[in-house]
């Protein structure tokens, strides 16, 4: 099992959800995040004083998947999130040793979906 974590542009969330849905990935968790990457951020002035904003608004998605869904999930995220502009984001894949459904106590691949 893998844990797929993606940082994407906030306004792309619904597209990514749609793409995942089409790839038959129905379960995910979403967190609000700030990110700092190649995107340079921007300068504001508040009351005439400079203020550099380099932590931009991002959305973080976490999806636990079974091995065989890994690539399909990654592809779906890319399909939904890519615009070709800097700031599109990253996908990180970490190994997942165990998954448990709290309601039933199911474990392992059966508990993912």
């Amino acid at each position, binding site marked *: 099992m893998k844990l797929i974590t993606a940082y994407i542009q*906030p*306004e792309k*969330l*619904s597209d990514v959800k749609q793409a995942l849905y089409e790839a038959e990935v129905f379960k995910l968790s979403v967190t*609000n995040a700030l990110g700092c990457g190649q995107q340079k951020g*921007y*300068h*504001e*002035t*508040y009351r005439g004083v400079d203020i550099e904003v380099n932590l931009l*608004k991002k*959305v973080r998605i976490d999806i636990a998947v079974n091995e065989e869904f890994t690539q399909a999930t990654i592809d779906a995220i890319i399909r939904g999130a890519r615009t070709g502009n800097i700031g599109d984001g990253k996908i990180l894949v970490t190994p997942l040793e165990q998954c448990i459904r709290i309601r039933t106590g199911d474990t392992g691949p059966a508990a993912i979906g």
Partner: protein
Amino acid sequence: MMSRKFQWLCLTLLGVVAITALPALAEQPPPAAAAKAQPVAATQADITQVNVAINTVWIVVAAALVFFMQAGFGMVEAGFLRAKNTCNILMKNFVDYCSASLMFYVVGYSLMFGGGNGFLGWEGFGIDWAAGTDPSGAGVSHHAYWFFQAAFCGAAATIVAGGMAGRMKFGAYLMYTVVISALIYPIVGHWIWGGGWLAKMDFSDFAGSTVVHATGGIAALIGTILLGARHGKYNGKAKAIPGHNIPIASLGVFILWFGWFGFNAGSQIAVGNGMTVAKIAMNTNIAACCGALAAMLTIWKIGGKPDLSMTMNGALAGLVAITAGCDCMSSVGAMITGTVGGVAVVLSALLLERLRIDDPVGAFPVHGINGIWGTLAIGLFSESSGLFYGHGASQLGIQALGVFSVVGFVLLTMGAVFLLIKKTYGLRVSKQEELRGLDIGEHGMESYAGFQIFTTE
């Protein structure tokens, strides 16, 4: 624990208060009334001056209340939008009032109330008229009357901000606001309140259902259409974009309602024996109540739950609707006018959705539709000229003609203005700016720094 150092302070203070105040407990004769005057007879001139004083205090208080409605508009509009566009709408709300005041000072008041022809006034720019009393016949000075009227002009200007919110360029808004407050509003106002052609036909619009609300509401409609919907609003089926701060919007509705007592009852500038002022206040209140309840029941029936935002729109709808006829209707007439307004605002908001016209705060349903309805309602429920009181349909005809003319005039002129801006300066911000929010794009700041807010749409 309250620190020691501090406790002595409190105790000492209480002591001082107690000691100093004690003698007062024993005996505290009230200050005497004004010194006993010789029984010199008073003249009618004295009475007139007193009446002018009452009227002036009344109109200044009423004008302050109408001014305060600007805060109400700001809060309602801000609350009904997403957080990322909040500074922008608040800024528009500030700036349109300021520029409306200025424009109305420099040209608007003169175009509206100056002697002229049936279409336009043309007298005394910069309010430097020769001595003379105000146009209302209440004996108050031009300054007082200007203040009251300028606040109305600001209200007409700010209605549009809500309908076009979330995607309109700030610069374009500035241009629009100058035009409406310097030209469009004063011209309509002259027709109806400044002795123009509609006034001469006995068209009746006591406190401005047409002059203020229909004008603002129609301008909002045409602007909204020319601007197009917010990005993501109509991908596939219509999507609701919920307001981000309902408590503040609800406060805004209360502020508007509060200010409306100045708006309507203040329009009866000559207080006289106060009967009309009181009647107007009562009608205003009861129409708003009926509008709110009617809207709640309507949306409850249609949508399955009593939606707060529609209920609030319903209260405003009732207020807009009763504005024209608050002086000439019985309270039952006011109840019906408000109730119909509350139903109408829900239905027309849903119709707009179906037509894919994206009016985030309901500017057109509230001010446009109900401005028109309220004006027509006089033809039905006016105790002195309404159809249902046995006075035939002639007043109704005049009302319809007047509303029709104003709607047409505003549609044409504001349509032209918005089109012109669209072709030259541009009406709409870039998609990128719209997605990130106009607060950052147009003003370089955020409304809720530090708060975690999802801006996923």
